[in-house]
């Protein structure tokens, strides 16, 4: 039963190897990728169902005993993240079939995306700090490969920014890992939970914790360290942008949640207060920067930043309810944000441009696309009864409950400012009369193929369903929050399983 844990990592890797070795043509490699994504979704769904039954699953790789071996662990948070990854993976793979050029396919688009998915799932499931570092490196390598694929000149300088910032963050990460190993003599996260509390030199522990926080803050685009994100995401091909926007920063957020609930809880006054300050500044600066942009994808990129702020805020408030809010926010945000990036590609197909000034009239010509934008956009902005409303409500409620009135108020105001940006896109691209035709490299498309519209509508449906059937999701998230706040179950499962 525990072997189930390896499947979300193994399946995409096997698929990647098959698609490298067989060298199929365009249609077949696309079909294979969709098939692989479907299998992945089944495995992740099954994993989640098993985790709900057994609370925490542990798998020791190669059957090495507890302190030396590397284990995979799935608790509620990990399993939920893996499931949501496979949902986005499936949607993006279906969308890619029509969007990816033959050149990109020949440069290894599908294998790289599959390795990326495997690495992301690996990062979600690992129970070992050094292993986490290795998965992060794999994520980087795969994303670098995708990012520099087919370069019409504009992408390399932005790739340079992404590559250099992320390399820097991994250096911080490994430095912190070295220090933590020196202090405790272990790198297993469950083991660290106990050992970190026993270390006398608390200052050095906090120092290492802050180094780790820096590393993951770069990856999850927190306040002073987010500039690589808006510089790169708008230059990527649409399905890649959607997958990166949905998943990459969230892996950083996941790592922050995992480490600052399981390992570094000895000095909450320093670490979580700092997280709180960063979270608020991230929310405000992201949403403010988005207000001044006119390119759809740049607006969406800045909104990623502001939304990451909400998630980290939930972690910083550090109550079970706040952590449950963070999990709901993660689930909601990944679906909605990936969907919005897919929609931005459709807007570009329908009007020939990503620039809001050159779009318009879509509400008249593309009714279904309007719906496909309306639902995720206003879910992002937090309109009831969509998923974003509940996510924001939970975070704000948790802030108020913990007595952080200022934070709650800020979160609400940032939500209002998000509405502003979404209304801007809505009025410019959908309600405004069509601008005069411009010489655009892309021929405007009247009919959007179903293969592109399908994933968007399915993700919309998911957003609505999560919003309407909030009760089970919330119950799940509350259990996850309890699990994160008191990790004895996690620790027992890992240490007992050796």
């Amino acid at each position: 039963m525990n072997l189930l844990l390896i499947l979300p990592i193994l399946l995409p890797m096997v698929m990647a190897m098959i698609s490298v070795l067989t060298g199929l043509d365009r249609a077949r490699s696309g079909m294979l990728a969709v098939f692989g994504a479907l299998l992945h979704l089944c495995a992740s769904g099954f994993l989640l169902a098993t985790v709900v039954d057994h609370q925490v699953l542990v798998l020791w790789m190669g059957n090495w005993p507890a302190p030396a071996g590397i284990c995979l662990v799935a608790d509620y948070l990990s399993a939920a993240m893996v499931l949501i990854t496979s949902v986005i993976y499936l949607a993006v793979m279906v969308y890619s079939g029509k969007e990816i050029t033959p050149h990109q396919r020949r440069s290894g688009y599908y294998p790289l995306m599959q390795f990326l998915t495997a690495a992301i799932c690996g990062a979600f499931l690992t129970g070992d700090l050094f292993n986490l570092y290795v998965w992060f490196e794999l994520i980087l390598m795969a994303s670098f490969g995708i990012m520099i694929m087919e370069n019409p000149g504009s992408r390399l300088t932005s790739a340079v920014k992404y590559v250099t910032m992320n390399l820097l963050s991994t250096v911080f990460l490994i430095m912190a890992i070295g220090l933590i190993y020196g202090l405790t003599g272990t790198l297993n996260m469950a083991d660290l939970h106990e050992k970190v509390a026993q270390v006398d030199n608390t200052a050095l522990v906090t120092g290492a914790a802050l180094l780790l926080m820096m590393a993951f803050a770069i990856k999850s685009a927190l306040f002073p360290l987010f500039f690589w994100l808006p510089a790169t995401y708008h230059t990527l091909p649409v399905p890649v942008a959607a997958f990166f926007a949905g998943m990459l920063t969230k892996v950083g957020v996941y790592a922050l949640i995992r480490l600052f609930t399981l390992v570094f809880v000895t000095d909450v006054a320093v670490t979580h207060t700092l997280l709180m300050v960063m979270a608020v500044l991230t929310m405000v600066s992201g949403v403010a920067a988005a207000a001044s942009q006119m390119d759809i994808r740049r607006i969406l990129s800045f909104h990623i930043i502001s939304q990451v702020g909400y998630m980290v805020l939930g972690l910083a408030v550090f109550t079970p309810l706040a952590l449950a809010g963070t999990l709901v926010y993660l689930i909601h945000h990944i679906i909605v944000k990936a969907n919005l990036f897919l929609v931005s590609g459709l807007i570009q197909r329908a009007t020939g441009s990503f620039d809001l000034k050159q779009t318009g009239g879509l509400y008249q010509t593309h009714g279904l696309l309007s719906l496909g934008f309306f639902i995720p956009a206003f879910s992002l902005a937090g309109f009831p009864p969509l998923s974003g409303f509940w996510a924001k409500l939970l975070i704000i409620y948790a802030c108020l409950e913990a007595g952080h009135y200022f934070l709650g108020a800020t979160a609400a105001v940032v939500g209002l400012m998000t509405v502003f940006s979404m209304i801007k896109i809505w009025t410019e691209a959908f309600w405004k009369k069509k601008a005069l035709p411009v010489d655009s490299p892309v021929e405007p498309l009247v009919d959007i193929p179903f293969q592109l519209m399908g994933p968007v509508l399915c993700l919309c449906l998911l957003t609505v369903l999560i919003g309407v059937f909030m009760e089970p999701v919330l119950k799940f998230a509350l259990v996850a929050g309890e699990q994160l706040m008191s990790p004895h179950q996690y620790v027992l499962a890992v240490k007992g399983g050796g």
Partner: protein
Amino acid sequence: MEALLAMLVGLITAAAFYLMLSGMLVRFVFGFTLMGNAVNLLIFTAGRLTHSDPPLIEPGQTGLAGPVANALPQALILTAIVIGFAMVTFLLILLYRTHHQTGTLDADQDAFLTEISLSEKGKVS
């Protein structure tokens, strides 16, 4: 010995940051390589410096006899070196291609920056 190595790590890190912040991307590569070495030294020092036997089991025995050196930090360093090597290779090729496109590797030069504003005008594939 630990104090000496700790100071060395600090020194190399400082030099590496100086190089990385210079704005010249070739210097960034040097800085990154230096930083990698500093980190490896740090892990090595953090794993305790001891004069002891290598962790090998003698023929005919079933376990280790007596205290041996800690092998884990070296395994970590080895992994970090391999990954760092791949990253530097990738970075060098990326910078070579970037130089090919922009004609400069100075991050403050216009040629490096205008490339981005081109893409902002909606010139997407």
